[in-house]
């Protein structure tokens, strides 16, 4: 056993012991439904004290952001350590102490593109769950054409004046701050002239309106900007180079969405769920063959996620190939829920039947292949940028 391997084995034992000692027992092994997620932020109320306690302890150890530097409230883990941490969390049934767009999206962007003041100001509030962020990319009518940004920020000397409208801003009605793409040069080509701006949602002139989805839920909002004054210091990275940050985050988001098979499933595969259900639904050769196919594809895709993460870690960038993870992962997730609905039969079509929130989750998965870049855009990216297929 090499030294590195030995160190990791030690780390595994330590972290497992820490989780066991610190995660309140009532939280262990609970299904990860919507209500079990801790999002944090000014408006947040914990559903119980255990959640609060677990968050506080994780914050103290830096484990809300395991790989971020310790100075910003992270734990400074290596990729291998982080993987072990997540494995042990899953094995012990401990829920993530905190989830947020700050952790997933803004933090990585600031770590890469932010200046020291911005990092010091925003990152600790994210790791401590004090500020909840939302993302302002899409605009009405622009759809997949993200670079078609019409919301404009005018340079008024001592501040930016923002006017326009965003759509698909996740939980904007519950978020404290927004990171958004705004147009700062209207004469430049589409992908130039975009900047990356941070705004406090309490700034006068910002209003939000939830969008009701086909699942009956409203996780997204429309967000309106009417003469919103934003400090000049809230611009991240270079002026008019916001598209670079957006691309960086899109790649990041794709990997994340591609890997997502959370929700009702928890860590379980569809086959495990079906095998545990009453009545032998898999006696039907059609459903059985589909389940086998899904199992085969999901196992292979899980390995692929690991391989790509290892590759990114090894410093060999994943780049445009992340489009594949997003494409494959989201299509797989849709198949997963189609199969669950098919096996649930008439019980599955109730909004609140014996299978709990299956129907809304099923409908929710239909957005997987749209948000963060549609399946069609991902295939275009693979064809044009990975395979270098011609335009004419």
């Amino acid at each position: 056993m090499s030294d590195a391997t030995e160190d990791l084995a030690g780390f595994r034992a330590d972290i497992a012991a820490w989780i066991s000692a610190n995660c309140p027992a009532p939280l262990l092994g609970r299904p990860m439904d919507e209500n079990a997620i801790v999002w944090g932020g000014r408006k947040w109320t914990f559903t119980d004290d255990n959640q609060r306690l677990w968050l506080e302890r994780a914050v103290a150890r830096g484990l809300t952001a395991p790989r971020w530097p310790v100075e910003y409230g992270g734990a400074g883990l290596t990729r291998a350590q982080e993987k072990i941490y997540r494995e042990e969390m899953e094995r012990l049934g401990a829920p993530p102490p905190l989830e947020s767009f700050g952790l997933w999206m803004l933090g990585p962007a600031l770590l890469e593109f932010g200046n020291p003041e911005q990092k010091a100001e925003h990152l600790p509030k994210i790791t401590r769950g004090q500020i909840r962020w939302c993302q302002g990319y899409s605009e009405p009518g622009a759809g997949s054409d993200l670079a078609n940004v019409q919301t404009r920020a005018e340079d008024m000397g001592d501040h930016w004046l923002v006017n326009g409208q965003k759509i698909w801003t996740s939980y904007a009605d519950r978020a404290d701050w927004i990171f958004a793409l705004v147009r700062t040069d209207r004469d430049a080509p589409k992908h130039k002239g975009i900047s990356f701006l941070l705004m406090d949602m309490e700034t006068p002139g910002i209003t939000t309106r939830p969008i009701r989805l086909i699942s009956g839920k409203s996780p997204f909002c429309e967000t309106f900007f009417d003469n919103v004054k934003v400090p000049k210091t809230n611009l991240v990275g270079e002026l008019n180079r916001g598209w670079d940050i957006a691309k960086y985050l899109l790649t990041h988001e794709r990997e994340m969405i591609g890997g997502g098979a959370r929700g009702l499933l928890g860590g379980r595969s569809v086959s495990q769920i079906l095998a545990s259900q009453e009545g032998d639904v898999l006696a039907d050769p059609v459903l059985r063959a589909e389940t086998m196919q899904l199992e085969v594809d999901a196992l292979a895709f899980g390995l692929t996620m690991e391989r790509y993460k290892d590759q990114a870690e090894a410093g060999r960038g994943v780049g445009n190939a992340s489009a594949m993870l997003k494409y494959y992962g989201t299509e797989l997730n849709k198949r997963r829920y189609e199969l669950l609905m098919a096996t649930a039969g008439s019980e599955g079509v109730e909004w609140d039947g014996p299978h709990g929130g299956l129907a809304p989750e099923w409908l929710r998965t239909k957005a997987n292949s749209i948000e963060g870049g549609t399946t069609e855009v991902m295939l275009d990216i693979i064809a044009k940028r990975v395979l270098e297929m011609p335009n004419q």
Partner: protein
Amino acid sequence: MNDMTPSLLDTEDEVMLRDAARGFIADFAPVSALRANRDAGRAHDPALWAEMAQMGWTGVLVPEDAGGADMGHRAAGILSEEMGRTLAASPFLSTAVIAASVLRDAGPRAHGALQAIAAGEATYALALDEGPKFAPAATALQAERQGNAFRLSGAKAFVADGSTAGRILVLARTSGMAGDDAGLTLFDIDAARAGLDRQTLSTIDSRDHARLVFDGVEATGDDIIGDLDNGLAALRPGLQAGQAALAAELTGLAGGAAAITLGYLKDRRQFDRTIGSFQALQHRAAHLWSEIEVTASAIANAGRLLDHMPADAGLAVSLAKARAAQTAKLAVSEAVQMHGGIGMTDAHDIGFFMKRARVGAEWLGDYGHHAAVIAALRGF
């Protein structure tokens, strides 16, 4: 299927019926009507049902001597298809197709019931499945004999139109065990009968579905349709008619979703061009259209065979339902995906198609069930 099968082309009468139905439904039951029903918390609009009765649709399968139009199963399929295009909600399938098909074989006693259906005065629900999958023989609900009467006890899990129908066709076990084909008896009872608890289910298609709990509900020999212990035979015409009409509805639904999507693709611009000009979307739209065309043939065939050779229609009916379930699934998947974000919003209609397609795929037997029926009939 058989070299004597009549042509699958619509006759002149059928073309006229389809045109008339499409016009009427566009006016009186567009998708916005389903939305209005849903928002008002009602499963369907009685005024629409009254209009359908006026036009003779409620009597589409009722003999003329009972006041029906007796247009036949192909006609019922055409009406169902047109209703499917806009997701028009009504008790048509449960009442005018399933119940009417069961009752017209039930002899003179059912004359009044058929008259009431044709007149739009009676509505029916079929209380059949007790688990999440279509399985008539699995019926366990007991009809216990007490002298000349029966006491029905048990639960039906998923009854379409179950909370609003005036009458219930219920399949109950009078002998044998759950799983036996024999020993089942079909009763036709008033939904208001004591001991019957109707629990409305909140389902994704915003239609009327209910769980029915029978707690010693009384029935007599007069309530039996067909023969004691041979209820599956009495039910078969209704089941086949219902499966064929539901398949037609799903095919109409697929066509409706495809048409809305095609309109969107021709209209919507992105990346400085109409998205319908992207070849990848064109090929997928063309494939979807092909699937709908092929399924439409199976729908027409099922209607024709039910009209002309009902004893041999089993394969055709299962073929129609199997194809329709898959085609509708493809259509709504493509429709929602091609609409992008807007299709995910409740404000857009396309989500309604996806929800109804899922319910329709399950009800009266899913793809796997009907594919297995076909395999058995084809000897493998």
